[in-house]
């Protein structure tokens, strides 16, 4: 059965989502919205609006919210009130207050699906690593170290991401949120947080360009996070060390491949009685040369709509917990 879908915000993410929706057999994009009037010319044959309220007034089943962070909560709440299934980009609003507002709207529409875009969980490297960790073959997780960094470019200081009103947070909220989500995904809920949130280089923006955090769970598992906008060579790296082995995710596939190839390396620990060189265990590396994360994430949303089953990732509870962590890191840093 066809799912009539609208997209609000036709910037980079809106266009990626449209491509995925167009390729899906059940979704049909029937309405678009962007505050730039000329955006409509790129999408002939689809009803285009400049006011998101107008789009929500159409005959729709679902809506994708791909806007600036400052309006996410209002749009999500209005869409849920109109009994639409909602997929919203990350971050889930400006603040934890925004998430709570959206959760209240969700509670009033219990038969609707609300999903937030944490597509990294659907990267093959992450999925494979999760399967290794969950198998228990290497024992309990001891610690993890996640680095996610990009280079803020020429337009960085003037982009919407650096606008206090539109974005609501710096690199931690914008990109680091993915790593915070993954660290929680692998280690569980963190209860103790220490952090530094700094303007190391981009002094003309209202937010941090680097965030460093140490987070510990009740079980004593420690995660180290570095989120950066001064990583002049893009980097994604997540190391997860367990009692008897490890799995490391190196690189994450993107359209430009600027974060390198996506691979996982994993090994059982070997002491000197098993290995010829201490600290050089037999290691297997798997390279993944395809990124289907957008497609798989959409399918998760689709399945939840069709079956009423729980989302595999990105529900409002995930959103709340990750936003709480981000707030805790800001607070720990006194920012």
């Amino acid at each position: 059965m066809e799912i009539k879908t609208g997209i609000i915000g036709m910037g980079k993410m809106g266009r990626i989502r449209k491509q995925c929706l167009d390729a899906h057999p059940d979704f049909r994009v029937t309405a678009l919205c962007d505050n730039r009037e000329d955006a409509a010319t790129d999408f002939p044959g689809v009803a285009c609006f400049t006011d998101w309220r107008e789009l929500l007034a159409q005959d729709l089943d679902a809506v994708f919210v791909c806007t600036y962070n400052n309006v996410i909560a209002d749009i999500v709440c209005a869409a849920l009130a109109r009994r639409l299934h909602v997929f919203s980009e990350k971050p889930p609003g400006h603040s934890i207050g925004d998430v709570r507002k959206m959760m209240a709207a969700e509670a009033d529409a219990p038969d609707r699906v609300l999903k937030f875009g944490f597509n990294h969980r659907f990267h093959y490297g992450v999925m494979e690593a999760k399967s290794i960790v969950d198998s228990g073959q290497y024992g309990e997780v001891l610690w993890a170290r996640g680095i996610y960094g990009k280079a803020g470019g020429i337009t960085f200081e003037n982009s919407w991401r650096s606008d206090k009103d539109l974005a609501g947070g710096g690199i931690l909220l914008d990109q680091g949120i993915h790593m915070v989500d993954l660290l929680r995904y692998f280690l569980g809920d963190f209860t103790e947080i220490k952090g530094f949130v700094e303007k190391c280089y981009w002094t003309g923006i209202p937010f941090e360009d680097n965030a460093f955090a140490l987070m510990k769970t009740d079980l004593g598992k420690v995660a180290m996070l570095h989120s950066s906008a001064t990583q002049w060579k893009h980097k994604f790296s997540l190391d997860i060390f367990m009692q008897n082995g490890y799995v490391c995710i190196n690189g994450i596939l993107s359209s430009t491949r600027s974060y390198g190839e996506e691979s996982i390396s994993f090994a059982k620990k070997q002491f000197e009685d098993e290995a010829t060189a201490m600290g050089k265990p037999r290691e297997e590396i798997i390279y993944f040369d395809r990124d289907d994360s957008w497609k798989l994430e959409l399918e998760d949303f689709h399945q939840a709509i069709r079956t009423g089953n729980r989302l595999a990732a990105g529900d409002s509870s995930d959103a709340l917990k990750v936003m709480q962590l981000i707030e805790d890191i800001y607070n720990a840093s006194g920012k």
Partner: protein
Amino acid sequence: MIQHEVQDASIRIDDLHPDVTYSEEQRLAENFVRSTASAPGLAPCPVSGSPRHEVFFQRFGRDYALCPRTWTVALANEPDPDALAAYFHDSDLARFRASVTYQDNLARRRAHLWDSQLEWVRQRLRRHLGPGRFSVLDWGPKAVGHTALFATADFVADYRVMAPLPPVTGRPPEAPCDVVLLFDALQRFWRPAELLRRINSHMRAGGLLFLTLRSGSGFDVLTLGGHNTTIYPLDHVCLPSVAGLRLLADQAGFEVLELATPGQLDVSIVEQAKDRIPLSQYFQRYVMSQCDDAMQERLQAFLQRNNLSSHIQAVVRKKP
């Protein structure tokens, strides 16, 4: 979709092919092969059916040819089936390999490799079939230590054996199996497609076949040709290439889930025989003259990642 690389500093060619044992095996194999006749001419490639026109190299007086379509390397002609059976089951070589000394030696030298192989199977089972215990059929096993390890693995509910080589014994299956292991056995068969179809008939739909084999499209095989002491008749009748194995799997009703060449030894094998690299192979001769340990490691990693090593590891699933 995925490529593999394996870094294992503990694997050394001298451990896997210790001089004394290996040279005795070669001597016995050569005696046997030279005492049997072979048909003249060049049969079509046993994998692709493509005509072959040129002998690639000779070992023990037997010609090997390359498939122009798939790069599969195979004997020029089908070996006499009786001779093949005698070679593996009733020959001085078969008796040598069945001896307690040989088997103990094998178990001692390969235990860590077998552990890695077990871990590979365990992981892939979990990935493709989920957690659980499965009926496993081991096809063509030749080492008692290896079968003992797999028969008692935590993922095995029922362990059966088909076409074992001496001294391995075991019961054949009575019902279709979830999992078939075909480790370093496919290369012993002249008609690999027929073998894979037979295996398929012993599996339930969705079941997994795990294969390891020597590949004709690997670096050491293509570089050294007849100077590669690790390739010889009748242990190596047909060495499918990566493309050849894909073709075989498809023809026999399997979907390829994983096909990698995580071999460790191509560069070591070529390095040990560098004085015998054919004169026309200037680049390989130059590379091997420059190759220190670090470069060997990088070159082997490159071969692994690009499916250019001569050790294939694959997981295929029986189609519904």
